[in-house]
C-alpha cells in the first residue's frame, strides 16, 4: 500500500492582472481581469513507505504548491490526493499528527524561547511519551550535537543551527512522512552534510518517508533513490536517480570570461566549436551574466580538456570557472530529449 497517492492533481491560482500607476491601482479595485496560473497541472505519482524522494525542478515549477497540497494547506483545484489514506485538506489535524514539515528558512520553533523549551512544547502537542522523547533527543544529540543549543534562544541561533533544530523538530514525534522544502538553502557544506546525515539516518532506522525539494544536486545524490522532476506544473521525469545522474554527471558548465568581448565573439566561438564538435548535444553556448559565457559541455561527446584547448587557441581568456550543470540546464536537456 502506498503512503502517498496522487492522481491527476492540479492547482490553479487566479491572479489579478495588475495595471500600472495610481490610476491602474484604482481600476484594479473593480477589475475582474484575472489570469490563471497553472501551478500544478495534472500530475500523478505514488510514493511508498520508507522512500526518500527528491522533488526537483526550476524556480516556479510547482514544487512548493504540491507540498502545500500534501500537507493540507491548499485545496486542490481538481484531482485526487491521499496521504496515509486521508485526504489532507479536509483532514488537516489527523494528517498533521503523522507528518513533519520544514518549509525553507521559516522556523516553526518558538522564537522567544530556548531551543529545549520548543522541543518540550512539541512533546506536549504530539503527546510524545517520555521514552520516545528521550530516545529521539538522544539521537539528535549524537547526530547533530543539538545539546549545546538547548539553552539558546531560537532568535539568536545562526541560520544553520536553526535549520538543524527545525529538522530535528520535524522528526521528534516519529512521523510517517516528513516534507522538506529546500532544507539546505543558504547553508555551508558542513551543515549540509549534517542535515543529510540526520535525514538518511532517520529514514533508515525509523523507516520515515521523506519528500524533499532542493536546488542542490548534491542533496539528491547523497539521499535519493528516486527523483521526480517537475517543470511548469507538469512532471517531466519520475524514476530512479541513476538515470538522471548521468545527466548531472556527464555535463559540466565551463564559464569563461573572454578578453575583449564584442558582438563578433559569440558567432566566432560558435563557428569554432561547430568545426570541431558538430554534434549539437556536445557543446551548448549561452551568454550568461555580464562578461561570462557559458559552455555546457557533454563530456562524453566533447572532452572538457579538448574544448578548453580549442577555445584557448583562438581566444584570450581572462578567467574561467567549471561548475556542475544547473537544475535549469538539466530540465533543458530533458526537454531536448536527453532521457529518451
Amino acid at each position: 500500500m502506498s503512503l502517498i497517492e496522487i492522481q491527476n492533481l492540479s492547482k490553479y491560482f487566479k491572479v489579478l492582472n495588475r495595471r500600472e500607476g495610481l490610476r491602474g491601482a484604482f481600476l484594479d479595485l473593480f477589475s475582474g481581469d484575472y489570469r490563471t496560473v497553472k501551478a500544478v497541472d495534472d500530475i500523478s505519482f505514488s510514493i511508498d513507505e520508507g522512500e526518500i524522494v527528491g522533488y526537483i525542478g526550476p524556480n516556479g515549477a510547482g514544487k512548493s504548491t504540491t507540498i502545500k497540497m500534501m500537507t493540507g494547506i491548499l485545496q486542490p483545484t481538481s484531482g485526487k490526493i491521499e496521504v496515509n489514506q486521508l485526504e489532507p485538506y479536509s483532514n488537516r489535524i489527523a494528517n498533521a499528527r503523522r507528518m513533519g514539515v520544514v518549509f525553507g528558512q521559516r522556523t516553526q520553533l518558538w522564537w522567544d524561547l530556548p531551543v529545549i523549551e520548543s522541543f518540550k512544547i512539541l512533546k506536549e502537542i504530539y503527546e510524545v511519551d517520555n521514552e520516545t522523547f528521550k530516545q529521539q533527543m538522544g539521537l539528535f544529540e549524537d547526530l547533530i550535537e543539538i545539546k549545546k543549543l538547548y539553552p539558546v534562544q531560537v532568535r539568536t541561533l545562526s541560520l544553520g543551527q536553526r535549520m538543524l533544530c527545525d529538522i530535528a523538530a520535524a522528526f521528534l514525534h516519529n512521523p510517517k512522512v516528513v516534507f522538506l522544502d529546500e532544507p539546505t538553502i543558504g547553508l555551508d557544506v558542513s551543515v549540509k552534510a549534517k542535515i543529510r546525515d540526520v535525514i538518511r539516518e532517520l529514514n533508515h532506522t525509523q523507516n520515515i518517508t521523506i519528500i524533499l525539494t532542493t536546488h542542490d544536486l548534491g542533496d539528491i545524490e547523497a539521499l535519493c533513490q528516486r527523483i521526480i522532476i517537475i517543470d511548469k506544473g507538469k512532471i517531466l521525469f519520475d524514476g530512479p536517480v541513476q538515470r538522471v545522474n548521468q545527466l548531472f554527471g556527464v555535463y559540466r558548465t565551463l564559464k569563461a570570461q573572454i578578453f575583449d568581448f564584442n558582438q563578433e565573439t559569440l558567432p566566432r566561438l560558435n563557428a569554432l566549436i561547430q568545426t570541431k564538435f558538430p554534434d549539437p548535444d556536445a557543446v551548448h553556448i549561452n551568454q550568461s551574466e555580464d562578461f561570462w559565457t557559458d559552455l555546457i559541455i557533454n563530456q562524453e561527446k566533447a572532452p572538457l580538456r579538448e574544448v578548453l584547448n580549442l577555445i584557448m587557441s583562438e581566444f584570450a581568456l581572462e578567467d574561467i570557472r567549471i561548475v556542475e550543470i544547473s537544475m535549469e540546464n538539466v530540465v533543458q536537456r530533458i526537454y531536448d530529449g536527453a532521457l529518451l
Partner: protein
Amino acid sequence: MKRLRHYFRLYFLIEAQYIKSKMQYRDDFFISSIGMFFSSLTTIAVFWVLLASIPDLAGWSFNQLVFIYAFYMLAISPFQILFDHFWQLRFHVIEGTFIKYYFRPLNMLFYYLSEMFDIKGVVQLVLGIAMFIYASIKLQVSWNLPLLLLLAATLFSASLVTISIMMIAASSAFWIFNSWPVLDLARRLREFSPYPMTIFDGFFKILFTYIIPIGFVAFYPSQFFLGSQSISTAVYLSPLIGIGTFALAYWIWLKGVNSYTGTGS
C-alpha cells in the same frame, strides 16, 4: 474533554515559558510593567476628568458612568490578554509566515493565539477590577448570588462581543491586502462602547445596537446592575448576543483560513 485538558495544559506550558523568557530581562520587565500601569491610569484619568466636568450626561450620574467604564475595562481584557496576536495577523498573511499554523495537529485559532500573551492586559484588568469595586460601593449595588451569576454571564458575553468584532476586523487580512484601516476602525468603534447608548441619536444607536453591537460590550449589560427604571428590550439579549457574534466571527476566520493560499515562495 480530554482534548480540552490537552489544550489547557499546552496553553499554560507555552505561556509559562513565554512569561519566564520575558522575566529574564528583569529590568525591562519591571519598567515596561510600570509604564503600562501609568499609561492605563492616564487613560482612566482623562475619562474621569471628562466625566467629572459633565455633571449629568443624558441622565447618568458620575458613578454610574464609572461603573459602565469599569465594566468595559473588564469586558475588553480577555481580548487584550489572550487575543493580542490578532494585531499581527496581517503581517503573517502577507509575508506567508501564516502557513506554519497549518502544520500542527491543533486548532489553528488556538495555536495562533497561544503564541502571544499580553501582560499589559493583566495590568488593565487589575485596574478595571479596582474601578468596578469602587463604583459598586458608591452605587451601593447589593451583590447576591443570582446577581453575581448574571455578572459572570454578561461579562462573558460582552467579552465575546469585543473579541468577535476585532476577530472579524483582523480576519479581513485574508481578503484585503492593506487591512490596517479595518482593524483601526474596529478599535475606534470599540472606544465608543463605554458611553451610554442613549446619548447617540437614531442612526448610531441602531448601528451600535444591531449592526456593530458595541452597545453590548458595556452599556446594555450594565443596566442589570444599575437599577435603572427603563430597561430596553435589547438589554435582555445581552447575555446571549456574545455567542451569536462569536459564532459569526469564527465562521469568518475559518473561511479566511481555508481560502488562504499563501505566498508564492
